[in-house]
């Protein structure tokens, strides 16, 4: 009986005892793993079981958005610069990669908002929600990964050894997306404004990222493209796929390091925020 867990709740911020807080974070992450898996399986199964096409929808959705851009370019409605690979391939991989990033970014807030009824009634490791979101994003990303490989075969490009590193580039996309998503979650749960502003903002950011437009050679747009931390993420993932030279490797690694720090910071804030948010959810 001496090893029985003692839980203490007081009004103090958990930052008063950082050692205890850190241990709590990692033990909750470990104990929340199984729950996260169960929740992810539940959501994925639930999503596709009630659809006639079932899992096919995971392919149809990203294909449709890529086809839109290919059509816009082929018909000349949108004039685009030169791309090193064929434009359909460029746009298709771009949209795939961008969707992976956006799903990762939206997942934390979506998961928390979708589990309000659970959160207000039961105590379970809060990390499980975030982790479950990551699992689902990874699941979707692996489908997109397969699709991109398919596209690669169709274009007849011979990939280099870099292809082996592509999964890491996808993980980097998910990492950055999750870090940003987790950081905006606490405020997003309180105020619905966040959920509205983010898609708007990201739409704008997308045009400054080499998703469907190639990087401009010069000018203000070119500079903005180069400053945008998402540029190396998307560009290098595509470059690894098609065996092209990587861009701004040092900046790429810096972005990832900052994302890791932001992820940890977001995690701490998320933990601190949860009781306050739950209090306001049912208030």
């Amino acid at each position: 009986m001496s090893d029985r867990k003692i839980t203490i709740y007081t009004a103090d911020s958990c930052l008063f005892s950082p050692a205890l807080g850190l241990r709590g974070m990692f033990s909750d992450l470990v104990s929340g793993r199984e729950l996260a898996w169960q929740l992810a399986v539940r959501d994925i199964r639930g999503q596709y079981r009630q659809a006639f096409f079932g899992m096919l929808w995971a392919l149809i959705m990203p294909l449709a958005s890529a086809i839109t851009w290919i059509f816009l370019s082929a018909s000349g409605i949108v004039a685009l610069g030169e791309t090193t690979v064929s434009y359909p391939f460029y746009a298709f991989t771009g949209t795939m990669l961008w969707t992976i990033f956006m799903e990762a970014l939206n997942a934390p807030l979506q998961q928390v908002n979708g589990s309000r009824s659970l959160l207000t009634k039961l105590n379970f490791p809060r990390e499980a929600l975030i982790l479950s979101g990551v699992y689902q994003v990874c699941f979707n990303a692996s489908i997109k990964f397969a699709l991109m490989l398919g596209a690669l075969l169709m274009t007849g490009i011979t990939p280099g050894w870099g292809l082996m590193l592509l999964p890491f580039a996808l993980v980097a996309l998910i990492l950055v997306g999750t870090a940003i998503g987790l950081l905006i979650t606490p405020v997003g749960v309180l105020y619905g404004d966040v959920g509205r502003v983010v898609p708007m903002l990201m739409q704008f950011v997308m045009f400054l990222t080499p998703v469907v437009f190639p990087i401009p050679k010069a000018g203000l747009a070119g500079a903005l493209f180069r400053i945008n931390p998402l540029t190396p993420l998307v560009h290098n993932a595509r470059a690894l796929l098609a065996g092209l030279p990587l861009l701004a490797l040092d900046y790429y690694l810096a972005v990832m390091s900052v994302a890791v720090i932001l992820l940890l910071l977001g995690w701490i804030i998320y933990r601190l925020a949860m009781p306050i948010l739950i209090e306001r959810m049912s208030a």
Partner: protein
Amino acid sequence: MPDTLVKVEGVSKKFCRSLKRSLWYGLQDLGSEIVGHRHGDMDSLRPDEFWAVRNVSFELKRGECLGLVGRNGAGKTTLLRMLNGLIKPDAGRIEMHGRLGALIALGAGFNPILTGRENIYINASVLGLSKREVNEKIDEIIDFAELGEFIDTPVQNYSSGMQVRLGFAVATTLQTDVLLLDEVLAVGDVAFRSKCFDRIGKLINRCAVIFVSHDQTQISRICDFCLYLRDGVPQAFGQAYDVLSEYSKKNLKPAVSRSVVLHPTVTKFVCKPAVTHIHWGEMLHFVIEVDCSEDFKSGLALLALHDSEIPVAQAEFTQILNNSPKKNHEISVKLGPLHLKAGDYGLAVTILSENKKSTIIHAINCAIIHVKGRNGYGVCYQMPCSF
């Protein structure tokens, strides 16, 4: 040896009435939490705030059961949610030993499209059971929920009774040291409810229990101690029986809860017992006077005795009203013998119109009857018996 499992010291919690302000305060609290300040200022309320729970303290050992009573909005559920660790107290300290379980949201996390079996794993996982533990107990769960071959059917095709049965079966599988119960003791139909009581009885012997309910019979049955909250402030704490009678007294004050609804045609309504203090098994004599501006017939006329909010005995007097439809009635009533346990009972009179669709008179607590004698345990009706 009984050990202390729950220690609550001077716990308080404040809430905000206005949503806009509440969200803004939430953002402020978030800020101060991140920079490491205390969560809120200890003793001051910001505009629009009030104390939902104020200065609650108690201790609970293994095998003991504490009942929380109080009217709606007294802070019982808020206290429970603090104990559960869902929200943080604004002042005070809560110490919980061991594994905590809560029978609060049955079937939490169910996805209606998935089968019962799949949902058992999800629900159990949310409650903190590992997959291995569920594998060991899944047959027992399915068996207890009496689902049989329906277990592989999507939960959306279950009846509501089947869903709560499954939820109950999973939630009570958890072996806990501290158990929180919010109104849920038993679910389903009568036969299943007795199974639930049996299972709960086994559970609560092993742990410390905190039970919120409006059902005083259930509280007096399973609780050793009671805490009576009113507007978040503890009013009484002690032996369950003492606190419950204090609570009933406070809630049956005629000045507070007497309510009389009269149809516009009713000009006079008097219901006054000559004696309000009687002994177990005695008769209650009183006169009901009803004056109406027009002749009326009644579809249903009832006299009832209420214990807090729950009617415990009733008598019908429709016949006597309808024998001779007229404007003025003066009915002399002899009610009883009243074999009720000691306590205070509110007398209620209800007279419905002939089609029972509208109310002629609905009077609650028009008199308080004090019954003395048997310190009854459990149900209000205490039968006479001889051996």
